[in-house]
């Protein structure tokens, strides 16, 4: 009702005034539309975040809620930075993130570049390739455990068939050397299509006339690839690297089900350490401090990366 009156008045009034009146009712509507989302995020994301920051300065343990909570100041943070296990976990995470991103970018870009040739039936096969990335990482981790089983697992069988290694010796998940690669293989299987899809969009965004001009200038195919295709697709490649980097830095589900961090702690990425500290050792204060450090790290990386991305785009 109020809106309609406002509109009627607005139509009868001169243009600048009309704008103002509409602006007022619109402003109210804008806040009415936006505030529920903001409130929900404040309640479910920001309030707990501040709670975690508070806990990170204490010795609170969630399994002993009645104990007196002591303020430790920055002690938790100091202990984390000096904790050998945490550094090992960070190294494991870095190894995982580095290799998954490298493999996914190289394979993903190559596939995109090949698909761009638009052979017959490419749409169908592309859709097939995209399936793994839509699945639940937890369920994927779980069924790869089956494929990795020595002897009976399909993966182990194929490897022993191809390489001639005795089938009982292909122990992807219990071998200390192989387990980190087992999680890298599954992640690459699952997420290469993601990088491929984004790279494909990048390749298709390159206008045809640039290649036509290069052809007129008699630039070789090799030269065209390095001076046109790669630089122009680069912002897209970087976008894919950014998203994958953040996601894999947080990696939990797939690794938790595939190896649970084992054997020993050879595949214990940061999120698994965090889960063990928070929900198995119940060192809530300590793990909150670690959570905050991880959060700041993800945020910092994302910010640096977004800036780099914008620079590339401006070129």
């Amino acid at each position: 009702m109020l809106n309609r009156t406002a509109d009627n008045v607005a139509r009868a009034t001169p243009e600048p005034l009309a704008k103002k009146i509409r602006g007022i009712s619109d402003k109210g509507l804008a806040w009415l539309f936006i505030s529920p989302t903001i409130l929900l995020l404040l309640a479910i994301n920001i309030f707990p975040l501040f709670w975690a920051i508070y806990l990170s300065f204490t010795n609170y343990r969630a399994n002993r809620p009645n104990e007196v909570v002591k303020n430790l100041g920055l002690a938790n943070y100091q202990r984390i930075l000096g904790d050998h296990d945490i550094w090992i976990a960070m190294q494991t995470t870095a190894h995982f993130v580095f290799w998954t991103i490298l493999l996914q970018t190289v394979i993903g870009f190559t596939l995109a570049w090949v698909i761009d040739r638009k052979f017959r039936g490419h749409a169908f096969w592309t859709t097939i390739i995209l399936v793994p990335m839509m699945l639940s990482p937890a369920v994927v981790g779980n069924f790869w455990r089956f494929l990795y089983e020595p002897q009976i697992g399909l993966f182990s069988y194929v490897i022993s068939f191809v390489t001639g290694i005795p089938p009982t010796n292909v122990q992807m998940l219990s071998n200390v050397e192989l387990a980190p690669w087992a999680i890298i293989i599954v992640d690459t299987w699952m997420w290469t299509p993601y990088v491929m899809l984004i790279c494909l969009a990048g390749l298709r965004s390159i206008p045809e006339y640039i290649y036509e001009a290069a052809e007129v200038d008699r630039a070789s195919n090799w030269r065209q690839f390095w001076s046109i295709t790669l630089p122009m697709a680069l912002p897209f490649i970087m976008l894919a690297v950014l998203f994958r980097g953040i996601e894999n830095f947080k990696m939990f589900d797939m690794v938790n089900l595939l190896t649970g961090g084992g054997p020993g702690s050879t595949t214990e990425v940061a999120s698994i350490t965090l889960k063990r500290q928070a929900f198995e050792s119940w060192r809530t204060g300590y793990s909150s401090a670690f959570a905050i450090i991880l959060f700041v790290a993800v945020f910092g990386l994302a910010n640096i990366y977004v800036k780099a991305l914008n620079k590339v785009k401006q070129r």
Partner: protein
Amino acid sequence: MSLTTAHSVVAPSSNAKLIAGTIIIAYALISIVPLLWIFATSFKTPPDSIAYPPKIVFQPSIEGYCNLFTTRTRQTPEYINALGPATGFCDETVRKRNMVIAGPSNFLPRFVNSLIIAFGSTFCAVFLGTLSAYGFSRFKVPLADDLLFFILSTRFMPPIAVAIPIYLMYRELGLSDTALGMILLYTAVNVSLAVWLLKGFIDEIPREYEEAAMIDGYTRLQAFWRTVLPQATTGIAATAIFCLIFAWNEYAFAALLTSGTAQTAPPFIPTIIGEGGQDWPAVAAGTTIFLVPILVFTILLRKQLLRGITFGAVRK
């Protein structure tokens, strides 16, 4: 080198196309064979599933599905012989292994939980997301860019880091292990995706439509309802499917915050254990049933996929 003629004026030669096709089909097989293997395993008997060498040809059986939906107890042959005739295929199969069906397993309730939580949170996220996206798209909101970045940033948080305080908060509020708690949490995670995707879709709808409607005497709200929403249907549907897939697939929060009544399928499926280790045909059966909706959605979504996975950053 013939492959490098990506966009050259000369169309790719038939030779290049042949090589390209071969590479892509080979990779597609790598993508799909593990899934086909799981599908096949779900129709194997437990001995067939752990045979060496792995069996490609086998006598199909629905024992895996029987085991998925039931719990069984081992009994003496005398006890089983004293029972009446078997009622149905599952009963018969189970008895051949000297067991009787003790009752239904938890799979169905967990599957139903997944449905309730996924659909509930998707509805809420898309509802809130549509309103916010319209607000950001059409009105001058102060600090709009900062608010949008804030909304997106909530998605960058590592789930385990978020789960620690949420666990404590839900314990205080009595929301631990409840569907409501999980719906609220998944709504909060998905709303960021919904706002970003829908803002893109609504930005693409010309403002002139609403302005025309408002000149005809509609209020802003009526114009939103009658002109913008119908135009945004495709975008809303695509966004909903993305939210649904996330909530359906989510594991970390579900594993840490639910244990019984509100547990969803992803943390449940890995816990299906038979006698002497994991009952792989039953796990494969559960996985197959769990993955089928995702396959259908992927095919429905294939044109919007790129947009969804990049928060609307890449549109083509």
